[in-house]
């Protein structure tokens, strides 16, 4: 369905993304995880063809969607895909809706544009979708303004807009970061159900490893604009090969005992302007040897997964 291969993105002379590959079949959920600044959202923007908006461009690699390469797709054709066969759920539901328009017309517009429906057909569809998203009284909600709704509700509206034209692939860019914890779980469960019911392909971008463990079939772990480990979710969680993946999994709170302390990864993600030579993670890696500072590691096969590390599987 969707296959990204060796994607490289540049903003002028800066290349914040390189060598990102993943593939996604129908009905599958792919998790892209990593800390802030690791290139997750940039990957989503590349898939949606939104890089030109912020002055970026794809310099290498390909994005194949249903046998079509999106990297050189002209804008009018891309516009048809966006919101049509490719849906995007944005990070911030609070500001993703037009404050001056009622909910109904905003959601209707998608079906009218992409499915060529008239006003009453589109409204019927809107009410139906809002219903499947477990929004109470969908007919009344259509006459509300965004400011009259809670964050969780707004996120459901944003999801409804992404679903309105029956997309094949849904990209959810940190769909729960702006919501509080109880609502987060509901939204994630909702997305999970939608994938199953509608046989959607979902790209779930998150920094929450526990969400990935619950919902995804495959994982790509990103660090400093590179994919450093990818594979089926069981393989990655059972035997993480890259020290960074190990550390990320180590950060999930178990919540069992009183004397458990929250763990973190010391240091921060390097700035785009000075990515380290060699393995990008080596300055923060407990296993780093000399070679890590000089050579970029190649992917090493391990089971069904691959990790880009000189010493894969080394215990932390």
């Amino acid at each position, binding site marked *: 369905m969707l296959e990204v291969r060796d994607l490289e993105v540049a903003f002028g002379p800066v290349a914040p993304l390189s060598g990102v590959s993943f593939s996604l079949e129908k009905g599958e959920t792919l998790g892209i995880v990593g800390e802030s600044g690791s290139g997750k959202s940039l990957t989503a923007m590349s898939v949606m063809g*939104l890089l030109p908006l912020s002055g970026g461009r794809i310099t290498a690699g390909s994005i194949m969607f249903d046998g079509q390469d999106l990297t050189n797709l002209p804008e009018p054709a891309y516009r048809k895909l*966006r*919101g049509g066969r490719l849906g995007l759920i*944005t990070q911030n539901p609070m*500001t*993703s809706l037009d404050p001056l328009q009622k909910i109904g017309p905003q959601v209707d517009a*998608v079906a009218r544009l992409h499915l060529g429906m008239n006003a009453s057909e589109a409204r019927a569809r809107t009410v139906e979708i809002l219903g499947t998203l477990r929004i109470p009284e969908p007919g009344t909600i259509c006459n509300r303004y965004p*400011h009259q709704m809670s964050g969780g509700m707004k996120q459901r509206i944003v999801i409804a807009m992404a679903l309105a034209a029956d997309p094949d692939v849904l990209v959810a860019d940190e769909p729960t970061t702006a919501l509080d914890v109880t609502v987060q779980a509901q939204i994630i469960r909702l997305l999970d159900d939608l994938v199953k019911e509608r046989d959607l392909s979902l790209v779930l971008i998150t920094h929450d490893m526990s969400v990935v463990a619950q919902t995804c079939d495959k994982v790509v772990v990103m660090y400093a604009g590179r994919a450093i480990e990818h594979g089926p979710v069981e393989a990655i969680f059972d035997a993480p090969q890259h020290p960074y993946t190990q550390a990320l999994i180590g950060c999930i709170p178990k919540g069992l005992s009183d004397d458990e302390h929250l763990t973190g990864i010391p240091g921060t993600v390097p700035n785009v302007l000075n990515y380290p030579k060699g393995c990008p993670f080596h300055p923060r890696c407990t296993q780093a040897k000399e070679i890590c500072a000089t050579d970029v590691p190649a992917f090493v096969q391990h089971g069904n997964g691959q990790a880009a590390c000189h010493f894969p599987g080394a215990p932390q």
Partner: protein
Amino acid sequence: MSSMTGIAARWMAGYRGTPVSRAFGSWLGKIAGGFLVLLVLTAIFAPWITPFDYAAQDLTNGNAPPGWPHLLGTDQFGRDVLSRVIYGARTSLSVSATAIAISITAGMTLGAAAGYFGGFFERAVMTVVDLTWSFPDILIALIFVAIIGPGLTSTTFAIAIAYLAQFTRLTRAQIVRLKRETFIEATINLGAKPHHILLKHLLPNAIAPVIVVGMLAIGDGIVLEATLGFFGLGAQPPTPSWGAMMSSGTAQLFLSPWVIIFPGVVVAVTVIAVNLFGDELIRALDIRDRIRGS
């Protein structure tokens, strides 16, 4: 939820109803707004409420002081000052409102296009528009008078051009700011076409400050219309205009001061009322920072 507390706080502060009803909420808004409503009604119903024909001369009763039956006196031709002031309101308000309407329409179109498309087009539009701003208003009026002769058409176009830059810049600033908002990005993500984004999402969100600045500009337009009338570039006799009345009154300033005082007072009070009500409207719409930012 920060947005909820914001709404709650506004509710507590009396943010209820439409912006116009909120602007009428304070006593200042009531007085200024009430005066303007009265003025507009007077202008509309002028033929029925004026005691005399505004153009009827009575040379035997020239320069009569205020009294009965000429409540505000007569000018040197014996014309009733009150009737002329009332008809003057028609001229002033309609010229100013028409001019500002033209100015807003053209300014919003140019500003929205410049802000949305950017690049060379934006620079070209803004340079030309800023150029019109660098001309004194009177000079613009003189250019139009030279082309189409003195009269209300010249005055209207002169006022429209004089305020074009203001609306273009204001709209452009709003569009440039809104273009970066998440909901516009979200709309792009849903595959919306540029004209849909511009007409359905950008312009409606940009219109509030334009309405208020337009309101204030009508006040300025009234002053400009009076100024041009005073110099004889605006309304031509016998069309009554506040500026032209004051101009003809200067000759008899000490003999019959009421001829110049009453239209002058009406201009001043009208402009003050427009500005006070405009301020109330800004407060009611809660957009002070957006107007200052332009």
